[in-house]
């Protein structure tokens, strides 16, 4: 049986082109002869790896190829003349398929038509059809349908969609904020946890620059970070993860952990940031610090008041005893003098321990006095010219804060003494914009290129940690003029008020 030719276009490209024979070589002419051989195209269609189906105007089966015989389990002879719709189409899809059929008969295109085709064993295969009306000179006589079995493909597609949906659900319900940005900083996705954390809805921020989620100075500098990474490939945060500051929609700043990974899909570079709000952890850390500070304070107070008092009493009585023995010309006077000397030493040790535990006196003016003490000791002991300059006598009511600030300044000054090769250092306390700035400046050799794992680096980390506990910002830089400036800026409200501090 011959396959019908389709459409009005008699020249289906299989005939040798007439007229332009000048390009024909001998081989091409022979090839055309083979193509024109009766039954050749029939054989091709018969063995094609797709369904080739011919239906008459009543949608009855006229022909299908061997491929479909194998696929469906029916021999053509068994079903020839049978209704395609009844035999192969499930009732729930019948009306849709009929509509497609009508459209095909009317000469319309039916691109992408798909339906389930019922096989002999009851299984169903999903088939993607490309249909065309078959016409002769008097009009349409039937339909030629070419079908591709897309069951496996659509199953894979479904699975992919399912996987994507599951991934989306994971991202959506994750406890961590997950934000993806493009290489220019434009936010592409923003999950629910991120919405909760930052107070912005995804609709509000997607398409905006990720700068909106961070406070100054990061906000102004972020473009530069991104550009630096894109240009140099240098990784400062990518793949590392670290504590940074985030800013909520209402302007509040909060500590968060940010881990950035770089995804390089085919279309463009994407960065994924996973953020965790550390407010609660920091709060706990602060609480623990406060508890341990209070414990230290109690201990110091006790050492200072109780043991210190007793030691002083012993020292006074010892002096009196020594004097008496001396006046009476006793040979024991010398031994008593030694005793008194040792008592004094012990007394100094107790005072030293108490001062170590609680360097700043409990009075609001204690911090400034203690800072003055740092300057004086540095002058006297370290042989470095050191002075304290302050706008005003700053009162610090919160003892924990006062002691941290003291230690921070002390560490900065010690760093100067040990590492800076400076001739002078200055401690400055400046009050501006609702903040108290504690600056330690020196005229030394400046910061080493990288404050790495050395002792200076460790000192910086400790200072930074302290500043973190105070919710203060901390910066170290070497001005072009030389030297180093350490700056810790703490909000005045952190210093505590007289009441309840």
């Amino acid at each position, binding site marked *: 049986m011959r396959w019908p030719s389709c459409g009005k276009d008699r020249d289906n490209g299989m005939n040798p082109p007439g007229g332009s024979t000048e390009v024909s070589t001998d081989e091409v002419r022979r090839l055309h002869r083979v193509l024109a051989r009766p039954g050749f195209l029939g054989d091709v269609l018969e063995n094609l790896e797709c369904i080739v189906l011919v239906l008459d105007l009543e949608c009855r089966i006229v022909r299908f190829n061997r491929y479909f015989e194998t696929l469906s389990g029916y021999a053509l002879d068994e079903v020839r003349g049978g209704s395609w719709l009844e035999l192969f189409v499930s009732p729930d899809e019948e009306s849709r398929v009929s509509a497609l059929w009508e459209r095909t008969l009317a000469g319309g295109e039916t691109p992408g038509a798909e339906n389930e085709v019922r096989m002999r064993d009851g299984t169903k295969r999903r088939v993607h059809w490309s249909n065309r009306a078959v016409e002769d000179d008097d009009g349409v006589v039937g339909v030629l349908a070419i079908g591709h079995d897309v069951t496996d493909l659509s199953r894979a597609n479904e699975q992919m969609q399912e996987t994507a949906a599951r991934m989306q659900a994971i991202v959506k319900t994750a406890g961590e904020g997950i934000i993806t940005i493009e290489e220019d900083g434009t936010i592409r996705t923003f999950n629910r946890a991120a919405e909760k954390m930052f107070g912005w809805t995804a609709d509000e921020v997607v398409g905006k620059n990720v700068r909106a989620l961070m406070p100054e100075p990061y906000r102004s500098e972020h473009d530069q970070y991104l550009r630096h990474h894109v240009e140099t490939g240098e990784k400062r945060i990518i793949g590392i993860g670290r504590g940074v500051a985030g800013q909520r929609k209402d302007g509040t700043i909060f500590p968060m952990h940010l881990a950035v990974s770089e995804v390089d899909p085919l279309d463009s570079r994407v960065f994924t940031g996973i953020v965790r709000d550390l407010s609660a952890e920091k709060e706990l850390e602060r609480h623990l610090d406060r508890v341990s500070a209070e414990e230290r304070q109690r201990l110091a107070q006790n050492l*200072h*008041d*109780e043991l*210190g*008092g*007793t030691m*002083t*009493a*012993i*020292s*006074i*009585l*010892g*002096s*009196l*005893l020594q*004097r*008496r023995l001396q006046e009476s010309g006793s040979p024991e006077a010398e031994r008593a003098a030694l005793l*008194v000397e040792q008592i004094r030493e012990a*007394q*100094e040790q107790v*005072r030293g321990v108490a001062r170590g535990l609680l360097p700043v*006196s409990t*009075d609001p*003016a*204690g911090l400034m*006095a203690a800072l*003055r*003490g740092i300057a004086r000791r540095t002058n006297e002991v370290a042989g470095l010219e050191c002075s304290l300059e302050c706008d005003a006598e700053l009162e610090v009511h919160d003892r924990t804060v006062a002691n941290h600030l003291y230690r921070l300044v002390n560490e900065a000054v010690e760093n100067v003494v040990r590492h800076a090769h400076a001739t002078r250092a200055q401690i400055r306390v400046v009050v501006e914009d609702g903040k108290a700035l504690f600056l330690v400046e020196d005229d030394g050799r400046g910061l080493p290129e990288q404050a790495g794992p050395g002792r200076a680096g460790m000192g910086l980390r400790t200072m930074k940690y302290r500043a973190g506990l105070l919710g203060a910002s901390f910066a170290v830089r070497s001005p072009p003029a030389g030297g180093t400036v350490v700056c810790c800026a703490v909000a005045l409200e952190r210093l505590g008020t007289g009441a309840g501090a």
Partner: protein
Amino acid sequence: MGILDGSRTGGGPLLADRRRRVLVVEDHVAMRNALHALIEAEPDLVVCGEVGTVAEALAGLDAVPDLVLVDLCLGPDDGFLLLETMRSRYPKIPALVVSSLDPEVYGARVRAAGAVDFVPKHEAANRLVSAIRGVLTAGPAH
């Protein structure tokens, strides 16, 4: 009279007694005893009372001592309260502060509150007696 026996014999205002009378306000017992011994080791000084609270100190002031030794930390009480009360009610009685608090922080404030001098506690053995004499010579700061 022994220096370590804690005797309290010098307190009575004897007519013939020319010794200057010192009221000791200190809540630390061992310290109070030591101050007592230190003062009474001087032939011209006598402890006329030893108390540990502001209320007791105010009661002791009625006996009009020549000088009051004031500790700033008196348990729950504050030595400043005593200094200020003395300034308003007994302006003629001089006060000398003996304290373990940082003189750098409290020195000026103590003087502003009316004390004549501030002796750090750990230096009391060496400096207190001469400071007492200095205050007795100078009189009250008010």
